[in-house]
């Protein structure tokens, strides 16, 4: 806020020359480097220290956190960056898982290739659906994603997930002994697979980060704020919306692939329609705009229930909490569904600061 005062005080000469000297993209300042260092340190801790500190029960839960953070990331790009709501992302996750499982059973391809293919095929399907669907706006787009996801859930209930059987569907209904979905040879154990999942997740986050900092990210910011204004700036909004759809589908497809290896066995009841609604809830609560929000969403989705289960509390309380969370976020978010600050955390932060201030009564408590 330093340079921009009122027009009265400003000296129009100096700012003009200053303007010409400024580079286009701000070079990474100290702040950015510090942040990058912190993130790197956190990552190293998570990859190497965390699995040693946690029991296998929690290692499993954290693997799920990695998977669902990716799903939340995909939805976050749509909701937080472009302003599109999809109520069918869990169906997309199921597609990714299905494709990965099929490939893992049918071929001996290395894991990274399978994940990539799962992502690409899911992305292709997502794009095909986006082509007609993105002609719809706001509410109707959300509803059509709900409808398509619902239809897919019904189909999945009948076709089931591949389990090593023959034919296109790869499902053998009468098999007594079902082989588990394989894992990469370097990451067969649970802690090793956890690390693998985290690495994949980091790659997905980097992919999104790269998008945000370049042309698509800027176009999305314009579209989210006002589609007419974006069009008036020459942006082909439909194309960029489709791009976002494709990106979200790719990431969610890859996440599905990781889920397949994590769970070893997939069932259609792992992907009920209402999960897509709950996913939206945690994305909104974690903060749809920021990348950290996706991590928080993943923690809300996968870690919290495990903690509660350990303490003998029913996970239904979480569903209720998430419902309340949706209502709270929506009634307090100033601009639609895309809000920059994870509202709940901001309030927590303010409450914590308030507590700190109370402990130091010498400081004035100016609101």
């Amino acid at each position, binding site marked *: 806020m330093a*340079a*921009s005062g009122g027009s009265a005080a400003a000296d129009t000469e100096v700012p003009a020359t200053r*303007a010409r000297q400024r580079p286009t993209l701000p070079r990474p300042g100290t702040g950015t480097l510090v942040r990058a260092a912190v993130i790197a340190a956190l990552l190293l801790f998570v990859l190497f220290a965390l699995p040693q500190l946690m029991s296998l029960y929690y290692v499993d839960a954290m693997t799920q956190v990695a998977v669902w953070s990716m799903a939340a990331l995909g939805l976050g790009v749509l909701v937080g960056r472009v302003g599109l709501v999809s109520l069918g992302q869990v169906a997309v996750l199921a597609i990714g898982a299905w494709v990965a499982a099929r490939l893992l059973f049918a071929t001996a391809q290395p894991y990274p290739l399978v994940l990539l293919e799962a992502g690409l095929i899911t992305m292709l399907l997502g794009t095909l659906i986006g082509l007609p669907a993105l002609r719809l706006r706001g509410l109707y787009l959300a509803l059509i994603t709900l409808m398509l996801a619902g239809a897919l859930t019904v189909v999945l209930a009948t076709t089931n997930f591949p389990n090593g059987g023959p034919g296109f569907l790869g499902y053998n209904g009468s098999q007594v002994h079902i082989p588990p979905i394989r894992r990469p040879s370097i990451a067969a154990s649970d802690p090793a697979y956890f690390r693998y999942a985290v690495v994949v997740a980091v790659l997905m986050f980097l992919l999104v980060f790269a998008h945000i900092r370049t042309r698509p990210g800027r176009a999305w*910011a*314009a579209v989210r704020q006002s589609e007419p*204004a974006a069009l008036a*700036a*020459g*942006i082909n909004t439909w194309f960029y919306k489709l791009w976002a759809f494709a990106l979200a589908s790719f990431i969610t497809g890859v996440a599905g692939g990781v889920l397949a290896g994590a769970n070893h066995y997939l069932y259609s009841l792992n992907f009920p329609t209402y999960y897509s609604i709950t996913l939206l809830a945690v994305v909104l609560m974690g903060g749809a705009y920021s990348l950290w929000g996706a991590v928080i969403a993943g923690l809300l989705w996968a870690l919290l229930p495990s903690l509660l289960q350990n303490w003998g509390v029913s996970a239904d309380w979480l569903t209720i909490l998430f419902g309340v969370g949706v209502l709270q976020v929506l009634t307090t978010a100033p601009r639609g569904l895309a809000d920059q600050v994870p509202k709940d955390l901001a309030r927590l932060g303010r409450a914590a600061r308030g507590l700190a201030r109370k402990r130091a009564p010498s400081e004035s408590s100016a609101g």
Partner: protein
Amino acid sequence: MIEVSDLTVRFGGVTSLDGMSVTFEAGTCGLIGPNGAGKTTFFNVLSGFVRPTAGKVRAFGEDLLSLVHYRRARWGVRRTFQTEQAIEDLSVFDNVAMIHEHARLGGARRQDVLEAISFVGLDADPSARVATLAAGQRRLVEVARAVVGRPKLVLLDEPAAGLPDQETEHLSEVIRRIPEQAGALTILVDHDMSLVSACCQTTAVLDFGKLVASGPTAEVLRDERVIRAYLGTAEVS
């Protein structure tokens, strides 16, 4: 030169434009009329957001209506909106450079953008996020977006709305210099008659979607039909 022939917009039983025919020659042209006269609808037709029921628009010899909305911007139609549209999450520079990113405009992008920023007299750091700027400055960002990269047609929709007198004065100076700086034909819609008199050589008046008068601004503002259209709401200062 912009030639509008028989432009009609009818939707859901409401006729916003009713056979509007007018020619905007050059320089800065005003477009005034009471609320609901169809001025913003006209802009929306030019921007490509509203498909007219009938009529044609020829802009510098081109059939403007045959271009899809985002292509019109790339062709050279720029506009500002009544509500603030500068993108808050992006920097001033990225806002103004947007049209460069999506249209092959050629020329030195950075120089173009920085020139546009200094042209509107925006004294803010180009890398500052628009969210940190005051309302008046955001307006200037929008105007900078409208004049960057050699536009052909600049549409300004009530740019001074809600601005204090001093900033309106500054805006008035900027608008007056647009034709020479950007070489574009500018159409200005506003209710502030002093702004319109100061900036526009010619003015057209709309009422009920029809053209009521057009010609040199001073004459038009004295025209009886125009005053009657406003029903005596004396905004002529």
